[in-house]
């Protein structure tokens, strides 16, 4: 076979002696890159978590931490948002899970273009460094909030409106480049490098989730890049894309005729699909973990894929629901309210299918399974509250109140993080060859899950009272109800507890990686290919001399008449061929 893919395979099989640097630092191996992504993202995420504590302390116990003032409060707010959405969640779910799992799950030796993959990680690291560098420049980091609305983000009334915002925009542009390099690899690998027998309709839903998410990312990040470049030009070159004639704090700025709404359209054309970039891989992970730990095929496999694809497509035409109160053309309200509520339908379908997967299953209460069940709960409440915000007339009173904070934290913050934890507990044995501690894991789950409800549920009630978000203090807010201080204090305590639970998680990871119980080759008795590698911790090239061949879909759990309650994808014939041996490749896609 004289194809480039075959040539690439041959190149991978050719083992060269590798130095330490080549093997663990500038590695081309997708598994090492995936771990690099995960560790970096978790480290940045820890910073984001600490920032949220500082904000919560100010809100719950005003003045208790004397060092928090409005300036650094808004800087914390900006960095918390950006870190959590972009540098933690996008990076870990696409870069971490995507890199580690895609080649293993589809039976490839590596990504299509390993060098590009390595560059993707190092570019990501550069974007993180640029982001954090904001704290070491005069004027400090930007306090422009994560949406960076001009003119506010680049004018004098906002902290860090000098070098801080420049670094932030540069960091975002570099991140887009990194995500593009990664996304190209994921998509190409999934489309062109599957093993024999691995049709698209036999791929695990995790791969489907990451694949669709990568497509969405590849098409939605460009407008962010465009908006970032234009904002940078406005800031550095004095162009007037987004800035009309304004008088900021007594100074008339040399801009004329720009439109702040243009930025918002470009930003949210990225911003809304970004939510699904994060949640689609999470949905995939949840589906796989749930099927494995409930010992049951995922219910409605095709419906799951169709709804993920539908969510991916519709997510591109709903963006202006973030702008119902922005003063845009009022007619848009009708269009975007309608498209937004339509997106609820595929999301609801997924929820039904998860419930029906649990139905009549044999549920094992392992830690990954607990996180999975927690995900379904937070996803449901997050999604249902989205119905308030998508419907334009209902949104207006709730817009920019704590209702919104509660909604997006539950649906894309907590849910995606719970899925991330489910994934880490589930695949940790694959990565390290050791199991994670179950007791610590359960403590971690219950504190995180119940704590998240205690933190974010009261926010819905605060939102109904009209309490605006992004407030440093509520001292001057006359319409704040008398109990607000008590509620805020309670929320802060719960948030600190949730934060402390993450220390348990870190301790668990470190301890288990060194001392944990040694894992079997297939500890969860799963069907997917990554558990069928010749070594427990797959070596370079993953599969030894011969690639696996796939004979069935990944959800042959509890097949009637089979000897075991699972049949791995690469197992050719079993004694009793079940009637439900997965969709035939030829029938797929109809």
């Amino acid at each position, binding site marked *: 076979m*004289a*194809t*480039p*893919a075959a*040539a*690439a395979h041959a190149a991978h099989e050719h083992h060269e002696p590798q130095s330490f640097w080549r093997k663990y630092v500038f590695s081309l191996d997708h598994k090492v890159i995936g771990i690099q992504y995960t560790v970096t993202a978790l480290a940045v995420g820890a910073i984001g978590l600490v920032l949220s504590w500082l904000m919560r302390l100010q809100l719950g116990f005003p003045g208790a931490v004397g060092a928090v003032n409005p300036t650094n409060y808004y800087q914390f707010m900006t960095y918390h948002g950006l870190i959590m959405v972009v540098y933690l969640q996008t990076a870990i779910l696409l870069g971490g899970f995507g890199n580690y799992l895609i080649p293993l799950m589809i039976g490839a030796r590596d990504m*299509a*273009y390993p060098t590009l993959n390595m560059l993707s990680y190092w570019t990501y690291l550069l974007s993180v460094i640029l982001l954090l560098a904001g704290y070491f420049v005069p004027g400090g980091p930007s306090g422009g909030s994560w949406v960076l609305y001009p003119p506010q983000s680049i004018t004098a009334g906002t902290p860090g409106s000098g070098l801080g915002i420049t670094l932030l925009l540069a960091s975002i542009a570099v991140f887009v480049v990194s995500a*593009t390099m990664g*996304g*190209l*690899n994921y*998509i*190409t*690998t999934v*489309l*062109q*490098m*599957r*093993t*024999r*027998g*691995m*049709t*698209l*309709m*036999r791929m695990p839903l995790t791969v489907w989730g990451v694949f669709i998410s990568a497509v969405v990312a*590849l*098409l*939605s*990040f*460009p*407008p962010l*890049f*465009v*908006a970032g*470049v*234009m904002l940078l*030009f406005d800031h550095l*070159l*004095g*162009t*007037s*894309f987004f800035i*009309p004639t304004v008088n900021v704090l007594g100074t008339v700025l*040399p801009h*004329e*005729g*720009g*439109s702040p709404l*243009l930025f918002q*359209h*470009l930003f949210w*054309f990225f911003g809304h699909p970004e939510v699904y970039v994060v949640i689609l891989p999470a949905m995939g992970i949840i589906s796989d973990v749930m099927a494995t730990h409930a010992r049951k095929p995922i219910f409605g496999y095709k419906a799951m894929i169709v709804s993920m694809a539908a969510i991916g497509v519709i997510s591109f035409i709903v963006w202006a629901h973030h702008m119902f109160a922005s003063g845009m053309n009022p007619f848009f309200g009708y269009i975007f309210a309608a498209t937004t509520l339509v997106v609820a339908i595929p999301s609801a379908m997924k929820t039904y299918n998860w419930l029906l997967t649990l139905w009549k299953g044999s549920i094992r209460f392992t830690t990954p399974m607990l996180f999975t069940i927690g995900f379904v709960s937070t996803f449901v409440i997050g999604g249902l509250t989205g119905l308030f915000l998508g419907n334009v007339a209902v949104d207006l009173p709730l817009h920019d109140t704590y209702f919104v904070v509660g909604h997006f934290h539950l649906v894309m913050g907590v849910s995606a993080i719970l899925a991330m934890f489910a994934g880490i507990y589930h695949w940790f044995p694959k990565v390290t060859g050791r199991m994670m501690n179950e007791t610590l894991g359960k403590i971690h789950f219950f504190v995180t899950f119940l704590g998240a409800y205690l933190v974010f549920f009261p926010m819905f009630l605060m939102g109904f009272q009209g309490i605006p978000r992004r407030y440093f203090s509520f001292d001057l807010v006359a319409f704040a109800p008398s109990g607000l201080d008590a509620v805020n204090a309670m929320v802060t305590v719960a948030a600190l507890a949730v934060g402390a639970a993450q220390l348990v998680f870190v301790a668990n990871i470190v301890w288990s990686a060194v001392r944990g119980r040694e894992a079997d080759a297939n500890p969860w008795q799963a069907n997917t290919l990554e558990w069928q590698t010749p070594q427990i911790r797959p070596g370079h090239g993953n599969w030894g001399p011969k690639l696996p061949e*796939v004979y069935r879909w990944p959800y042959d759990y509890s097949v009637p008449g089979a000897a075991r309650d699972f049949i791995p994808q690469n197992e050719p014939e079993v004694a009793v061929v079940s009637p439900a041996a997965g969709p035939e*490749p*030829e029938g*797929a*896609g*109809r």
Partner: protein
Amino acid sequence: MTEHQQAAVAGGRRSAWREIVADFSRDVRTYPFGWSKAMMWIFILSDLFVFGGFLAAYAGARMAATQPWPDRGHVFSLTIGGAEVPLLLIAIMTFILISSSGTVALSVAASHERNRSKTAALLGLTLVLGACFLGMQAYEWTHLIHEGFLPSSNPAGASQFGATFFMITGFHGTHVVIGLIFLARVLLRVLRGYYDRIGTWEQVEVAGLYWHFVDLVWVFIFAFIYLI
């Protein structure tokens, strides 16, 4: 045309659908070529969104601008023998870029025949044409800046004109530079017989795809920024 497509034409819409389903339900590969070509096509799609975003933003900024939009025919005119010819330089630049696209297409055709000297010669010609294009763009920029057009302001109306012009043509010019580097690398490899050694000349086609895309974008820049 492949047999598959002849069948598709004969069978009409139903078999077109069947062809798509067949591709997407196959194992190993969805598209019948190597991953580098697939990756380039997907990159082109993503880059299309970057340029689409730029052009959409340009439209939005231009419509909302409070000052009148300058007359491009006048701004980009060259004076030949005392007469002002509007957009002459741009017309020549368009001519050159289209020609370079043609030479790359011929070069890719030659690469299918594995004709090393012909492929290399045509690639070299493309490089020369691309460099000419860049040189003329550099001339155009200096000319404009000399006349007082800057990203932040211009003497002939809305400042968004200069801003969008320099941003979009600059971004396109960056693509041309990258394309030249890419083509030069492929040219070297053709000359060294690298593609004969690895057994596939697909890289020439991949580089060609990228270069055509740069040309494709120019078609829209020419229409939207200079003409409309």
